[in-house]
């Protein structure tokens, strides 16, 4: 009896250990392969040149710049909208009210929608509907200006995708602002909005920044939302305006692995591109973790 039990016990320990180990192994394996395959190609020239010779040579500068511009425009739209939504939820709806629950439900649903659906929604809503309406109103002779994929529509689609991340982290931050501080301000004859602006938001800056960085790292890693809304197969030039298309690291990788004229020859480029994408995402994630950690320790110290 006891022997059987001890055998089962050992088996359970070994099995759970093995499962845990497989997660670690997967990370090491993936990282190892990518670093091994890509490090030699990761040169200054690779980072600062446009792809050449039918994308079998050259660098990935347009993709880096495109990714950068994508996340900047996305943040400029998504962070304010997300922050304002979080303010509305935590300050202007009462806890547990039907409206608040409904908005929270909507935000959670938004977070659960697959990225490709966002891509198709972006194509339908931004490119065709919004862009189409703009062109009908402002474009002479039916020339397509806004009714085609571009960096603005791609960024807006991405902003929509990352909105829940921003809302949740800003709301969390707003919740940690002590009630005593708000009351101190209100008791001085300061309006609610002034209190939010002067007391609540300055004390939530950490959460807003964390939300922004998490959104950026999420956005930088998604390809599906920009597939139909603005990402380009190949563009030697950098985007100059909202109506330009752009290259993006994740999409570039997808193109290189599936549409390349010579997949074997471009393997080092693919690995190096993956490495750049991962480093960028990791840097942003670690930035968010570091910032949260610093703000938390500061709050404890105070």
């Amino acid at each position, binding site marked *: 009896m006891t022997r059987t039990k001890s055998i089962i016990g050992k088996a359970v320990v070994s099995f759970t250990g093995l499962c845990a180990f497989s997660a670690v192994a997967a990370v090491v394996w993936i990282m190892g392969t990518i670093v091994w395959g890509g490090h030699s190609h990761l040169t200054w020239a690779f980072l600062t040149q446009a792809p050449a010779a039918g994308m079998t040579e050259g660098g990935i500068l347009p993709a880096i710049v495109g990714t950068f511009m994508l996340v900047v425009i996305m943040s400029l739209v998504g962070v304010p909208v997300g922050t304002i939504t979080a303010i509305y939820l935590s300050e202007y709806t009462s806890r547990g009210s039907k409206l608040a629950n409904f908005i929270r439900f909507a935000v959670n649903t938004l977070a659960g929608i697959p990225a490709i659906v966002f891509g198709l929604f972006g194509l339908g809503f931004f490119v065709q509907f919004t862009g189409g309406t703009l062109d009908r109103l402002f474009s002479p002779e039916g020339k397509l200006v806004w009714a085609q994929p571009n960096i603005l529509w791609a960024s807006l689609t991405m902003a929509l995708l990352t909105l829940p991340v921003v809302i949740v982290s800003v709301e969390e931050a707003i919740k940690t602002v002590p009630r005593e501080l708000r*009351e101190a301000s209100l*008791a*001085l*004859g*300061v*309006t609610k909005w002034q209190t939010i602006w002067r007391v609540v938001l300055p004390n939530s800056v950490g959460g807003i920044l964390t939300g922004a960085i998490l959104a950026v790292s999420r956005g930088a890693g998604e390809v599906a939302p920009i597939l139909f809304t603005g990402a380009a197969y190949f563009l030697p030039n950098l985007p100059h305006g909202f109506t330009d298309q752009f290259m993006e690291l994740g999409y570039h990788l997808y193109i290189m692995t599936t549409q390349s004229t010579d997949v074997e020859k471009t393997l080092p480029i693919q690995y190096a591109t993956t490495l750049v994408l991962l480093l960028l995402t990791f840097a942003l994630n670690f930035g968010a973790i570091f910032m949260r950690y610093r703000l938390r320790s500061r709050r404890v110290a105070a």
Partner: protein
Amino acid sequence: METAPHYAKLYTKDLHLHYGPKHALKGISLDMKAYKVTALIGPSGCGKSTFLRSLNRMNDTIDNVNIKGSVFVDNVDIYHKKVDEVQLRKKVGMIFQKSNPFPKSIYDNVAYGPRIHGLRDKAKLDELVETSLRRAAIWDEVKDELKKSALALSGGQQQRLCIARALAVEPEVLLMDEPASALDPIATAKIEELIYELKTTYTIVIVTHNMQQAARVSDYTAFFYMGSVVEFDATERIFTSPKEKQTEDYVTGRFG
């Protein structure tokens, strides 16, 4: 208990407050006279803090609070729909139990209210900050480090800074919610001394758990129990010859 509205800076008439299903205040009528200190005493949960917070409509910020009856400040019903609670709170300031300075410098804490209310002139602001800090009896301790974070001050200093911050918006009434309960005896003595000074200029209503404190600083005392005022009279009488048995038991420490 006679009512004399025209002498009372604040008075309430049959004030009822429901907090969700809880009947927290059951018909309170109380006069608080100008330039006097009125103390509200009673066991925990008796409604004295809730009552205090009704006097500047701070309870408005809490969900599920229902108020019936009236509160008059300078003979104006503050719960009338034409009254702006933001303007009211400028006139009726509040000091909280736990000192709550903003995570800003000492100067910016005091200047916070006046700045938002539109005072931009640097010289005038400097002057107002100094006057407020002097009135709150903390100027001598902080005058050389106005740029220092308010969070670096001791508990007693923080509380006096909060008083200075409240004074800077030039209120007429000060509501104090157990302002010294978290302080040591020396800091408490300083706050009490300060209250004594302040009543020459302000009307003060103070909630306290400390019988000796009520006896020392107040002119009038109201004894709250289970959401009602059991007895309200001159402080001396409450502590030496209360009319109600309950009051006597409480002030002599037999229950509470």
